[in-house]
């Protein structure tokens, strides 16, 4: 479903974020990427929908090679790939429904979206996406009036409204408290299991990763240092990824008890 072939990214200024990375993700998999901040996790995820262009190698999503697409085809690809962000990236000043409808932008004629004339069908799809994350009663509330956990659920609904085949989540729980983190992870898991969406998540907390992932990919300095089932991750693997032993900062539950 997603295939990285010798992918590398060098940012202007010479910082190499990804180095000759090759990775294969199958359809329907729930993959969690773990690693220190600065290991290249965010870059990795953003190359899948072309928000960050590759400097070398290639990324394929399904049958499409991201780097070869022209602008409108790239937009069509992005419409098939939902994305969830650490800071939710909602428009605070507008309603939850309008935020979710942003997920439909590529599916309606441009002029109609400019005028804000959403058809009954589009609104229905947005409502359903909100129902998946069980927050439909807030549809006409301003996003600013929601709690962090609720905002992230709206973020998930926006991605689901795209009816994507791939879901990307960039540190989706890093700004949330532990119970809310679990709620959000459960919704992502449900989207993967019930809707069959291939899901790629960046996480900082190892215990969360182990709990929800089918497969864990460890990233260190832009290269894959571990790739295997969640059950195979132990203390030694951890040291390989993080370059040090496990501390309380690396697990969610420990942080909760602080």
């Amino acid at each position, binding site marked *: 479903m997603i295939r990285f072939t010798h992918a590398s990214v060098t940012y202007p200024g010479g910082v190499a974020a990804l180095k000759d990375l090759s990775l294969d993700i199958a359809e329907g998999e729930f993959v969690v990427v773990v690693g220190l901040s600065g290991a290249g996790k965010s870059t990795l995820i953003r190359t899948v929908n072309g928000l960050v262009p590759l400097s070398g190698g290639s990324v394929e999503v399904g049958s499409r090679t991201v780097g070869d697409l022209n602008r409108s085809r790239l937009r069509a690809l992005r419409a098939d790939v939902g994305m969830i962000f650490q800071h939710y990236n909602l428009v605070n000043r507008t309603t939850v429904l309008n935020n979710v409808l942003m997920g439909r932008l590529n599916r309606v004629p441009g002029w109609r979206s400019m005028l804000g004339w959403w058809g009954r069908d589009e609104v229905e799809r947005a409502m*359903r996406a909100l*129902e998946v994350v069980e927050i439909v009663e807030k549809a006409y509330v301003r996003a600013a009036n929601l709690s962090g956990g609720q905002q992230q659920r709206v973020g998930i609904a926006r991605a689901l409204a795209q009816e994507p085949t791939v879901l990307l989540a960039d540190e989706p729980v890093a700004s949330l408290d532990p119970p809310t983190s679990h709620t959000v992870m459960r919704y992502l898991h449900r989207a993967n299991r019930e809707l069959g969406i291939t899901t790629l998540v960046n996480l900082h907390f190892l215990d969360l990763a182990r709990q929800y992932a089918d497969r864990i990919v460890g990233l260190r300095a832009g290269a894959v240092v571990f790739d295997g089932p969640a059950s195979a991750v132990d203390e030694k693997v951890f040291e390989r990824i993080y370059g040090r032993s496990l501390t309380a900062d690396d697990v969610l539950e420990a942080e909760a008890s602080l």
Partner: protein
Amino acid sequence: MTGAQQTRRAADERLRRAVRPEKPFNWFRLVVTVAVVAGFLLATSTVDAHWGRLPEAPAQLWNILGLMIGELALADLPDALASMWESVAIAWLGTMIAAVLSFPLAFLAARNIAGPGTVVVTRQLLNIPRAIPEIIFAVALIPIFGLGPLAGTVAIGLSSTGTIGKLSAEIIEGCERGPIEAADAAGASKPQRVRWAVIPQVMPEIVAFWLYRFEINIRASAVLGVVGAGGIGTMLQQSIEFRQWGQAGMALIVVIVVTIVIDAASGAIRRRIIRGPSS
């Protein structure tokens, strides 16, 4: 995949029966929109504007701009620069008058410094010059000081006093209470509290606003000459009235360039004042 499809169908079924919230109606937005649109249509249709002349306006303006550039003569430059300098001088001195007048008034208009009675009286006093345009001050001052830059300077000074005073008062009201309390705890008198706890907090922002007002006053002083209160306005008005387009064009260019340059310089100084000295 069939298992997933089944769950999906079940989920769809569940969703179909779900209750959707109703779209709330935004009365406020409706009222504002209707008021603006109706006001606009009413004003456009009733105003005695001879709209028939509108279509020729772009061509006429274009024509005038063409003449201005076509007849541009370097010989007019020294005159234009000297007149513009007078406008800048009027704006600068006017702003200084306003700064001096408004500074004590601002403290009297701040709720955290002065008593409620004083605040109400001072605020009303500041409201009056704020609402009256500089030109009206200027026409009233010309019979007193005669035609020339002095009338313009005093006009700018008086009319800016209102805006600067009000905004300075708001800045003073926004300052932190902590240092005032600390000064109080150290046994400071009221003037001492203002001098050592309030003024150091608010001075950068107030000075930055003086400069901002100076930028605005340049635009005002550039047109004061229209009524004879000094500056480049006289040259602009006369050259346009007597259709000496070359001279008008030169004056216009000088006004625009000097305004943009002073805006940029003053803006940089303001940012530096707000940021404070780099250590």
